[in-house]
């Protein structure tokens, strides 16, 4: 018995040690030091938003990379955001408890959708379509329950000041938020790394290829799928809660619905779903794109980002399915696809 470290393809390539040990340390150090050197409000705000969305996209990719392409994650994000805010405003339940509660609701929803999908072998395109309904339902509920959620006008958690802010998970200081978001993002990457390097990853790869053969190898196909789905949904709900607490304003369109789901798929695919930093790079690109359009074209370009996303998604799926980071990785390591 040599090393008991599982060999995912990413680890087998030559500069693996450099890429897996040194690079994360350097990047981490730079990110921690950055706000002390440079903390203009707008760039800092952008960084926080990028980190939160990176976490959301990474959460999606935890299951998405195994061929479980969900378009329901906008729904989970919405549940996390609205759940936390509603529990706070109506029941004065601190987000420290409200967030886990909302995550639990998202997990229950994920299981309600995931279990029948697994039992009746709904996979691939059909899985995407079934989950799409979940996004649409959460969006509809948030929009239609106007008296409770404020409908399409959006919703704001009640603000508190000072020390009580800690209890309310509200921080007025952007520096604080930066480090919260950085921590959340890092934990997200860690979770995905752990999943990718677990025996469960083998099982999910096997399931993606051939469910019967996976079953014959002893894999409880339904259990493995539901585990990763629940994990991914819980993480995404957490991302929604973070977004809500940071922005202090949510609307059905920004945290739920099909466009948010599509945005997750787009960002993850563009960055590369098989590589750990892929969804993060995807977040940087999508957010800079959205901000760029907003700055240069103003409100006239409202919704253009979705048009550009859609077009780029098609282009990427056809010509660069491994994504930008995946392609760069292959170049660096001599063509071995990190999948």
């Amino acid at each position, binding site marked *: 018995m040599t090393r*008991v470290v599982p060999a995912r393809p990413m680890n087998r390539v030559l500069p693996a040690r450099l890429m897996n040990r040194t690079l994360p340390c350097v990047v981490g150090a730079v990110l921690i030091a950055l706000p002390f050197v440079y903390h203009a409000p707008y760039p800092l705000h952008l960084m926080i938003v990028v980190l939160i969305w990176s976490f959301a996209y990474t959460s999606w990719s935890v299951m998405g990379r195994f061929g479980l392409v969900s378009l329901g994650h906008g729904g989970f994000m919405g549940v996390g955001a609205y759940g936390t805010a509603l529990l706070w405003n109506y029941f004065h339940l601190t987000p420290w408890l409200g967030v886990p509660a909302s995550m639990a609701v998202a997990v229950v929803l994920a299981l309600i959708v995931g279990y029948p999908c697994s039992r009746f072998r709904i996979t691939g395109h059909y899985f995407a379509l079934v989950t799409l309904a979940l996004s649409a339902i959460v969006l509809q509920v948030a929009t239609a329950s106007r008296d409770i959620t404020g409908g399409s006008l959006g919703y704001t958690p009640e603000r508190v000041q000072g020390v009580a802010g800690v209890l309310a998970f509200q921080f007025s200081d952007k520096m604080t938020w930066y480090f919260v978001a950085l921590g959340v993002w890092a934990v997200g990457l860690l979770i995905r790394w752990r999943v990718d390097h677990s*025996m469960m990853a083998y099982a999910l*790869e096997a399931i993606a290829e051939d469910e019967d053969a996976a079953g014959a190898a002893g894999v409880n196909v339904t259990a493995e799928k539901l585990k990763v789905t629940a994990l991914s949904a819980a993480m995404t709900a957490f991302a929604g809660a973070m977004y809500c607490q940071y922005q202090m304003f949510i609307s059905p369109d920004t945290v739920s619905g099909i466009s948010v789901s599509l945005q997750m798929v787009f960002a993850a695919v563009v960055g590369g779903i098989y590589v750990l930093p892929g969804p993060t790079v995807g977040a940087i690109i999508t957010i800079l794109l959205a901000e760029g359009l907003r700055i240069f074209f103003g409100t006239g370009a409202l919704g253009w980002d979705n048009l550009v996303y859609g077009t780029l998604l098609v282009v990427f799926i056809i010509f660069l399915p491994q994504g930008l980071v995946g392609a760069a990785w292959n170049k660096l390591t001599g063509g071995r696809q990190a999948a």
Partner: protein
Amino acid sequence: MLEVSGLIKRFGGFPAVSNVSFRVGQGEILGLIGPNGSGKSTIFNLLSGTLTPTAGSIRFLGHEIGGLPPYRIINQGIGRTFQIPRPFKRLTIFENVALAGYYGQGQPSRSKAFEAAERALSMVGLPTDRRSEIGGLGAAGLKKLELAKALATQPKLLLADESLGGLDETEMDQAADMLRRIRAELGITIIWVEHIMGVLMRVVDRVMVLDHGELIAEGLPTDVVGDPRVIEVYLGSDAGAVQAAAAERQ
């Protein structure tokens, strides 16, 4: 070890398996033969949990296993290979087998699963390193991989489904020897479904013949090949060769 009684499987109105009963003793190699569509693979799918029986009972080591999901049947000690090899192409050879070693044994420690994988791979004669890819395997190699996956689950009973299809003479003999060694060295009981009857007859202790979902003959290979009903089923095709093989065995 295995006791099947009154096993029935219907697809719609079509009886794929009608009232089949048999027993398999500890340490036996049982051959299961029959023409295409006679229900051999259906029986395997019922035994391994891929299909649920319409009626009847399957008892393994004293427990009823009919209708249990595949992973639970594997954890009780029944491993299977598929007629057409079904490797996981995105995983390496080692990962394929390690996966079976881990989940097939009810998720023990990773090191235990890896050890089982290494043992299974060296048993069938495949490389035990971590990097070898599926792509380099030919038909014989894929069959070996299929067998290694089944062995890594540490079965007490192995269901080997037409494991020699697509192999040449030498490879066939090697594969037949392999099944003998698996029983001799690992003490695994085997049910072997096979089209190529010559090889099968040389290895098995006992043979069952299926036709149209019914058991039409059962017994020692030498006796079964003389059975008029078996000759009728295989008339003109394999009968001569089978008799020759059975005679050679004596």
